[in-house]
Structure formats: C-alpha cells, structure tokens
C-alpha cells in the first residue's frame, strides 16, 4: 500500500473513520486520561508520596522483578519453542502449535485455579515440591509460574514468522565456511532473531505487570512479600483510596508503556527498508 492510494474516497469510508476514532478514543484514550488525572490530582509530589510508601514500593518492585524474570525466561524458552515448531519434524506439531495459543484463551483467574489445583499441598506435585523444601504456591515462584504461563505465546508468535523467513543460505554459507552449528546459531541465527525475541519478551513484560486474576489466587498477597503491584492497586480500590490506586497504576502503566514502545521500536527497526 502506498501513500498515494485514495485515502477517504467516499462517505462510507468517512463513516468508518468516525467509528474507528470513536472506538479508540472512548475505549483507550479516555480511560487513560481518567487514571492520569486521578493519579496526578494531588501533584507529582502527592503521587511520589503514595508510591514511595513501603507497601506500594515493595509491591511495584515485586511486579517489576518478576515480570523481568519472566521476560528472560520467555526469551529463552519461547525462542526454543518457536525453533522446534519451525525447524523440526514433530508428530502432533499442529496440536502443539495450537497449545501455545491456549494461554491467551484461558481466563487468567482459571490459570490461578489450575496452579492451585496442581501445586496445592494435598496434591502429589505440590507435595513433592514442598517435601523438597521448595514451596511453590504463595511464594514468588508461583507468581513467576503464573506469569510465564500467561505470556508463553508472545515470544513464540513473534519469533516464529521471522524464523520461517530466515534465509537458509546464510546458515549453509556459514557451515561451508567451517563454522560449527553452535557458532552458526550464535553468529547467524540469533542476530537475525534478536529483535523479534526482544520485542516479544518486552510485550510479555508489559502484560505481566498488568496481571491480576491469576496472581491474586496463587501469590498469597502478603504486603512486602508476595503482594504485587496490580493486587496492591486492587486493595487500594477496595479500600476506597482511588488516588493511591491511580498513582500506583500510573507507575505500572508507565513501565508497561515504555516496554511496549521499546517493543515497537525494535520491531519497526527490523522491517526491511522499502525498495
């Protein structure tokens, strides 16, 4: 599509434009403005006062580090999954590919319930971990597990198409020049995939910051220990303190927006230049 295509040729297209603008405006921009207004309603000092209070700060920090850990986990495991799905003949590949998308379709509250059913202390799996001194539920591992589950598709779906388009001749050339498969992987394949890996894991990072439904079930929600930013926001809403809720939301939102902008910038940089 070039820029000289007829932009708005008729009434129908104009109507469509109105609908789309209204849709984006009402659905996304207005709520963002509302939370921004509430968050800064007591000035930036007021915002800082709220989010630097120990309970808020610890909750936000917990969200940031668990989301970062999951982003790294996804970068490795997601790339490996995409690699297997693309490159290896695998029985039931079609099924596997479908399974990767399942987390997007499952209500995250259900994800939490599934984890409790799997790792609860009366269940075999949970008992095994607890017996080995590794309690999973109601501890940070539960948070990471839930976030990892929910964000599996991001890296896989972002890397897969790039992997599919990758020019095999470069790998063959590297091999011909005597590079070991491992060296080929690191010097030819990874540089080509890196932007899509980074963009996928940043999207997963942003999504993780927002996660509530599963976390509130599996984490234990103890302030300073296992209470995440999103659950903190919820508790402030429930406690009738909208300003504190909005202020903490803004911090999470800010981090998520930076991450998604980063993901976009990386993704755009890799779009082949128009000829």
């Amino acid at each position: 599509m070039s820029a000289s295509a007829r932009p708005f040729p008729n009434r129908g297209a104009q109507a469509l434009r109105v609908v789309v603008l209204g849709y984006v405006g009402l659905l996304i921009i207005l709520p963002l403005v509302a939370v921004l207004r509430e968050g800064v309603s007591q000035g930036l000092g007021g915002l800082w006062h709220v989010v630097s209070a120990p309970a808020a700060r610890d909750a936000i920090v917990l969200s940031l580090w668990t989301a970062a850990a999951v982003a790294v986990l996804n970068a490795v495991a997601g790339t490996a999954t995409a690699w297997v799905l693309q490159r290896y003949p695998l029985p039931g590949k079609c099924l596997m590919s479908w399974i990767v998308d399942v987390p997007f379709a499952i209500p995250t509250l259900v994800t939490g319930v599934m984890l409790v059913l799997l790792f609860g202390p009366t269940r075999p799996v949970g008992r095994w971990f607890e017996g080995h001194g590794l309690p999973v539920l109601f501890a940070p591992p539960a948070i990471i597990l839930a976030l990892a589950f929910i964000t599996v598709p991001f890296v896989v779906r972002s890397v897969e198409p790039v992997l599919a388009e990758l020019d095999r001749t470069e790998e063959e050339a590297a091999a011909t020049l005597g590079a070991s498969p491992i060296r080929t992987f690191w010097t030819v394949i990874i540089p080509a995939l890196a932007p899509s890996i980074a963009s996928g894991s940043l999207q997963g990072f942003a999504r993780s910051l927002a996660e509530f439904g599963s976390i509130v079930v599996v984490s234990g929600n103890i302030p300073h220990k296992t209470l995440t930013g999103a659950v903190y926001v919820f508790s402030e809403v429930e406690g009738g303190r909208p300003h504190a809720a909005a202020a903490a939301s803004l911090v999470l939102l800010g981090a998520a927006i930076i991450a998604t902008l980063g993901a976009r910038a990386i993704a755009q940089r890799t779009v082949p230049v128009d000829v």
Partner: protein
Amino acid sequence: MPPKQPTWREFAVTSILPLAALAIVIGCGVKGAAEKEGSAAQTLTLGAYTTPREAYGRDILPAFATSWRAGAGKAIAFEESYLGSGAQARAIAGGFEADVAALSLEPDIETLASKKLVTHEWRGGAYKGMITNSLVVIGVRAGNPKKITGWNDLAQPGIKVLTPSPKTSGGAMWNAAAVYGAAFLGHIGGRPKGDSAVAEQFLREVLSNVAIMDKGGRESMLTFEQGVGDAIITYENEVLAARDAGQAVDYIIPDATLLIESPAAVVDVYADKHGTRALADAFVEYLTKPEAQRAFAKHGFRPVDAQIAKEYADKFPAVKTPFTIRDLGGWPNVVQQLFAPGGAFERATPTGAK
C-alpha cells in the same frame, strides 16, 4: 479528479460532531431506560455481601415472596447482587440502585448514609439495624492436629495462619479486630489489659504467621480447604457452611472473641425512586422475623432474636467472654486506629524480608 486529503475542518465535521451527537444519544438513552424501570412491576433489588448468598437465595427470598403474595396479593421479583461488603457499598454509592443493602458491617451502611442514600435512622428498632450475628473463630484441620485452643496459639512459631486481607475485604476487618481486641481487652494470657502497644504487638505476632491473605473470606476458606495452612481466622458461619458442604473442618471458639453484627437497611433514595418503598421496608422488617431468623440460623448465622437463638442453642455454643466492636470504641474508632493508612494493622504487618 485527484483525491485530496481532508482538511482539519472536514475532519472536525465528519468525526467530532458525530461523536458528540452519539454521546448525547447514549446519555439520553440510559436516562430513559432508568425511568422506565421505575414504573415497571415490583422488583426488589438486593445489594448484599457474599457470605449470606445461600441463605437469601435458597430460603429467605422465596419465603418472603410467598408471604408478600399472600399479604399484598402481588407477585414480586428479585434482582440480587452479591459482592464483598465494601465493594457492594461502593457499588451502591456509585450508582447501583439497590433498594435494600445487606452488608457485613456497620461502616459500609454508613458509607451509604454519608452519601445521603440511606437517609433514615437505620440503627433503630429492637436490634439496632442488625439482622444476624456471628463470631470470629479459628478453623483448624479435622481433629485439631496442631492442638490450637485459642488466639495465643496463632502466635506460636511455625503455625501457618490464613486470613483475608482487610484491605480487600471489609469483612476481614472483623478478624483483625478480634485478634487485636482480645489482646487489648486483656484476654491473651499474661499480657496487660488496655494497652494499644501490647495489642499491636500481639497482632504483629499473629500476622507474622499469616502466609496467605486472600481477597475475601470465602476465598480464604476455599484456600484452607485446599489443604493450605494450619489454622484460619474466619467467621463461624463460614466454617458451618463448609462443614455443610462436606468439608472436614473443625473450629474452636476462643474464650474471648468478637461478636460479628451485620446490618441491613433500606436505601431510601433508590427505594423511593423505584416506588418500592413499602416492599423494601417490609423486606428489611421480615429479616428479623422468626421465619427469616431461622433461615439464617440454618445457614450458620446466629439469630439476633433471642427466642430463636434459644432454639438453636445446640448449634451455636455459648461463648465464655464475647466482646463487641463497642468494647473497642465503636467502628469509627476501630477503623481509624486499626485500618486507616498508617494504622495499627499496617504497622503490625511485618516488613522484613523473611
């Protein structure tokens, strides 16, 4: 003719004006619908907290409908909404037009009074606006393997305790107030009476054993049923409901514990708006009548009617030293001292890494 880019003016005309028009249409539409609802057949909208859902849904609402039909000769319908008590109060305050609010604790009705939605003196009558009682109790594993006998045991090292967060669950304030109050009133062995620092320290010791704070009382009970934790601070009616559902949960009533008193009130503004005043008044009155009181008792709530309470004396053992929220200075005082930002509960929440 070459296509041209639309100018800013065209953009304004084609985009912003229709949007504004749309907004007006939507606004009017909502208003029209609300007015129509008022003139419709009699529907009673109940905004309640989650815990007594079964009592209302299975017994009280059907029985009230029958008696209303017998008396007034008219059929009625119900719209029921169940949320955490604080959330329900905020929903009603925020425009959910419930005719009757049945909530866990007085401050939540007070929220509605402060918004001028409940305008009458709702604390009137023989029971001061309260419709059920319950107790803060300690749920334990079947057979009580950890030999928990009272509040003191919840502060022992190595005991894993569950209680919902009072930040997300208004009802959980009862739990924290019970622990704090038992210590403040001198019922924790060897600790001096009437010292808020002592009470806060005891609360801190119990909270340091709390591994999971679910977002509400029911969720907390479900987690306990999953096998997590040694003890759960909960309400007597929650344990009785769990046992009715076949769960192997035992409970102990601490020698000194807090009497939970839960209110209901007509939301004047909405009842008048819907023209359901008579119905709503009759419903709230019905809640303390023997029939409803028995239904509550069946679902694990202690009746406020002493006569009915006597009938269920076997089900609800007497408490050695019950105390009420008034012994702690009343709700406004308790909320201020314990649950306000920076209050005793927040200070008593352990901040250490471990």
